[in-house]
């Protein structure tokens, strides 16, 4: 989809490196969160928590509100597909990448778990 520029953002980095890089980064982030919570009474603990809060806030804005981010480009592509179904839906997907990539999967997961729980409870 040249209109979205996805072709420009293809990278040759193998997925296994991305996964291992993500594991290193987010596990350190998790450890820092635990350390910050455990030392919240100290200035250092509060600084760590503030840094993590600001980081997540910035990450959300850059991922969901910047046209350069990968989810934004995929949502642009999806909105093109959704245009045939409903222009309003296409606009919503285009403007809010969190709808197809965060809220919809979470809702689907919640529905699946609820349905599974209901089925199990009847058995």
């Amino acid at each position, binding site marked *: 989809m040249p209109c979205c520029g996805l072709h420009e953002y293809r*990278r040759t980095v193998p997925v296994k490196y991305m996964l*291992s*890089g993500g594991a290193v*980064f987010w596990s350190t982030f998790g450890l820092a969160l635990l350390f910050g919570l455990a030392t919240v009474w100290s200035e250092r603990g509060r600084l760590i928590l503030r*840094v993590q809060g600001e*980081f997540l806030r910035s990450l959300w804005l850059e*991922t969901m509100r910047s046209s350069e981010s990968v989810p934004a480009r995929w949502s642009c592509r999806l909105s093109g597909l959704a245009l045939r179904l409903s222009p309003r839906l296409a606009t919503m997907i285009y403007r809010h990448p969190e709808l197809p990539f965060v809220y919809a999967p979470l809702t689907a997961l919640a529905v699946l778990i609820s349905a599974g729980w209901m089925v199990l409870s009847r058995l």
Partner: protein
Amino acid sequence: MPESSAISYDITCKGGSAAPLPPRSEGPVLVMFSGGSDSTLTASLLSELHPVVHLVTYEHKAMSFASKSQLAVENLRKAHGADRFVYSLLDINSFMARIFFRPLPQDLRKYGTYALPMCCGSCKLSMHVRSILYCYEHGIRYAADGSNAELSELFPEQMKPVLELYRQLYQRYGIEYTNPVFDVSRSDHQLFDRGVTTKRDYKTEHVVYTNQHSCAAGVMLYGFTLGVGLPLLGTSAKKDVATRYIADKIEHFCVPFLDAELLRLSA
């Protein structure tokens, strides 16, 4: 402050003009020295132009084994002469705290997530600030490091526009800053050819460097790039943000700090 430095040059921060640079053959040079092949080649090349090369290695809390750079110092001394190199290991923790850690929440708001990997840019900036103080203390007018184009796409501190900002900072204090190996593709091969090292391919031989420190922050930069930058933000580095960040830190921390510190030292 040593007596020699007091007569060697004026401080430009007061608005006065610096004394003219001495010829390279007469003045010492400072090399920011990690012990890796790039900074070792820089020191080797400059030892042919300057009578004395000051090799300065820096360390902070996230670094381990910084003193391993002494192994590379031994190689240089064997190849070029023991009396040509002066080695120092200096701490930059206080600079890192003031440039990077304390203002990090505000920086994340101002520069976005890329403020986090700018840990490496702040680290290098801390080294430059300490280097300028070192130059002043020892009457040195030339400084250099092993910045290399090979890593400049990923590491903010080695990007060309950022290097230009460093050069201007040194110039303000009457010091000439250069990157002699910026365009050298395999510094380890050149070191071998010059007789400094005994192995030709040691740059790619080990995951843990034999002569160089290891840095947890550097691992985190890779983690951020691979786990956040590429899969979510669609980019490995942001050259414009790195340049703005360093320019801001130079203007709001480095220059006021160095102006005050050099005036205090000269008083």
